[in-house]
C-alpha cells in the first residue's frame, strides 16, 4: 500500500509518500520559520494561510520526486490533531478531498503518533513493545507502546515541554527564533563545569516532568553573572555558552534518569526517542551511553524525521489503513486530541 501523508499541524508543511513494502519513496518539507520570525513565535492565522499556499505544490513535487502519478496512490493520511486548529483544517480538507478525488481511503493521523512511530522509518527498526520518550515543542511524555494505538501514558509534562523550555531559554540568551537548535549549537562552546543546573523532579519517584523552573534558573544565572557592566563582550558570550551548556545538560540528564526509570518500571528493554528535541545530539549520545548495552537498546530517527515532517504521517497512516481504519466522507480535526484516546490497530506487519 502506497500512502500520501500530509502534515500541517503547526508551522511546517510536510508531504511524503510511504510504501509499506518499499519504504519511503519521497518527502518534501516547507518551513514557515521565515513567516513567523518577525513575530517572535508562530502566528496561527499566518500559519493557516501559508499551508493553503504550500500544500498542493508540495503534493505535486513529492509525487514527481517519487516518479508517481495520482493513480498510484492507495490512501491518504493527514494530521488531524493535536495542533493549531486552522492549520490542521487545511491539511485535513486537502487530504480528505484528494482521497475522494482519487477514489481511495483516507485516515486522520494523530501528530504525536506520527512522531512516536517515526523511528520505525529507519533500519534497524524497533520492535513492539517499547517505551517512547516524546520530546517536542509541545510535549514531554513517556509512553508505553504495545502496538499501533495501544498506548499507556507513563509520565507527562506538568508545565513547559522540553522543546518549549529550550526555545524560551534560547530567547533569554538572545538567540533567534526558534531557539532550540541554536541553543544546542551555542552549548557546544560551553565549559562543562562552570555552572550546575538542577535536575527537576528526579529526587522523588514518578515519571512526570517539569522544565519551567530551569528557564527561570537560567534567567537568574544570566542576570547574576552579567550584572557587572564591565565584563568584556567576549567573556559575556562565553558565559552565555556556559549557561547553554548547563541548561542542555540538565534537560538531557533529567530525561536520561526518567527514561531509565521508565524502562525499569515497565521491564521493557527498548527505548525510542521521538519529537523535535530528540534531534538534539547530546540527548542522543547520552541516552545511548546510559542505556544501550546493559539496560537495552535505544532507537531514534535521523534528525529530519524528529522534527515535524510528512514521512511520519504517511507511515502512521499506512499502519492504520493496513489495519482497516478509514474515515467516512467527511473530515474533522481535534486541536487537543489525546494520544491515549486512539483506537488500537491489531494488524502486525
Amino acid at each position, binding site marked *: 500500500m502506497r500512502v500520501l501523508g500530509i502534515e500541517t499541524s503547526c508551522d511546517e508543511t510536510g508531504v511524503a509518500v510511504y510504501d509499506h513494502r518499499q519504504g519511503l519513496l519521497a518527502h518534501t518539507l516547507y518551513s514557515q520559520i521565515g513567516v513567523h520570525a518577525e*513575530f517572535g513565535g508562530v502566528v496561527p492565522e499566518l500559519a*493557516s494561510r501559508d499551508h493553503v499556499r504550500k500544500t498542493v505544490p508540495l503534493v505535486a513535487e513529492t509525487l514527481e520526486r517519487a516518479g508517481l502519478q495520482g493513480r498510484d496512490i492507495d490512501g491518504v493520511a493527514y494530521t488531524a490533531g493535536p495542533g493549531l486548529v486552522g492549520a490542521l*483544517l487545511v491539511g*485535513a480538507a486537502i487530504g480528505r*478531498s*484528494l482521497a*475522494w*478525488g482519487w477514489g481511495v481511503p483516507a485516515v486522520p493521523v494523530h501528530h504525536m503518533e506520527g512522531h512516536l512511530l517515526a523511528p520505525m522509518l529507519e533500519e534497524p527498526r524497533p520492535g513492539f513493545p517499547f517505551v517512547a520518550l516524546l520530546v517536542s515543542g509541545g510535549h514531554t511524555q513517556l509512553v508505553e507502546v504495545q502496538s499501533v494505538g495501544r498506548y499507556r501514558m507513563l509520565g507527562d509534562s506538568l508545565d513547559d515541554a522540553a522543546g518549549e523550555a529550550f526555545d524560551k531559554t534560547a530567547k533569554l540568551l538572545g538567540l533567534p527564533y526558534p531557539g532550540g537548535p541554536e541553543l544546542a549549537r551555542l552549548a557546544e562552546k560551553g565549559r562543562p563545569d562552570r555552572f550546575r543546573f538542577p535536575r527537576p523532579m528526579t529526587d522523588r519517584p514518578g515519571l512526570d516532568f517539569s522544565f519551567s523552573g530551569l528557564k527561570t534558573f537560567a534567567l537568574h544565572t544570566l542576570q547574576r553573572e552579567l550584572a557587572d557592566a564591565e565584563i568584556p563582550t567576549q567573556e559575556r558570550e562565553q558565559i552565555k555558552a556556559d549557561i547553554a551548556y548547563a541548561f542542555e545538560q540538565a534537560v538531557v540528564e533529567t530525561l536520561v534518569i526518567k527514561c531509565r526509570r521508565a524502562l525499569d518500571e515497565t521491564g521493557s528493554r527498548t527505548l525510542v526517542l521521538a519529537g523535535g528535541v530528540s534531534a538534539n545530539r547530546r540527548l542522543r549520545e547520552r541516552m545511548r551511553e546510559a542505556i544501550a548495552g546493559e539496560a537495552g537498546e535505544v532507537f531514534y530517527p535521523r534528525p529530519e524525521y524528529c522534527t515535524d515532517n510528512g514521512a511520519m504521517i504517511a507511515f502512521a497512516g499506512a499502519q492504520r489503513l493496513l489495519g482497516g481504519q478509514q474515515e467516512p466522507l*467527511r*473530515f474533522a480535526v481535534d486541536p487537543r486530541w489525546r494520544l491515549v484516546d486512539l483506537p488500537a490497530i491489531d494488524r502486525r506487519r
Partner: protein
Amino acid sequence: MTKILAIETAGPGCSAALWVDGEVEERFELKPRGHSELILGMMQRLLAQAGLRLTQLDALGFSRGPGSFTGVRIATGVIQGAAFAAELPVVPVSTLAALAQGCCRETAARRILCALDARMGELYWGAYGLRADGLVELIGREQVAPADEVELPEGDGWHGVGSGWAAFGDALARRMGPALEATDASRLCRARDVVVLAAAGHLAGHGVSAAEALPVYLRDRVATPKR
C-alpha cells in the same frame, strides 16, 4: 455539455451546486461549524444523482472569500484537493459577487450593495450591478473597512444584502440616504449562484490550476511584528 461543480462554505450556510448546461441542482444546509462534515457528501450526492464522475466535469468553482477565514479555507482546501486529484481547472468566485447574484436571481434588484460582518467593527464590502447577460459585475473594488469608511457607489436604487446590514445597518443607511432602496440582512451566499458565476468564468477561460486556487481574505493585516 458543460458540467461544473461549485461549493460555498464561507458563511454560516454550507452548499454545493452542479451546473449542467445551465441546469442547476443544489444542496444546502444551514449548519455553522458543520461544513467539514457536510461538504464532501453534498458534492458526492450531486454527482451520483446526475450519474457523473468527478473526472467528467469541466471545471470546479468555489466561493473564494471574503468571509470566515476558516470557512473560506475549507472551501479552498476541498476544491484544491479535488481539482488536483481529477486534474480539473478551478474558477475562484467572489463570495460577495455570488451573494449579489443570488439577490438578482430572487428579486428585481439591479444594483446590489453587499456587506458581510467582518467583526472587529468592519465590513467586507462590494457594490455590484446586474449586466444585460444576467450576471453581476463588480463596481469599484471589494474592501474591508468600518461602516463609516466604506466607499459608497454612485447612483440610486441600491439593494443592501448580507449580514453587515444587520450589524451596521443604521450607519450604512444613514450614509446611503435615499439611494438605498431596500435591505435584506438575512440573505446568504449560495453555491447555486457561485456555480453560475463559475460557469461564466470557465467559458471565458478564467480557470486556474489547483495550486493557484487561493482564498481572498481582504483583511490581510492579521498580526503586528514585534519591536
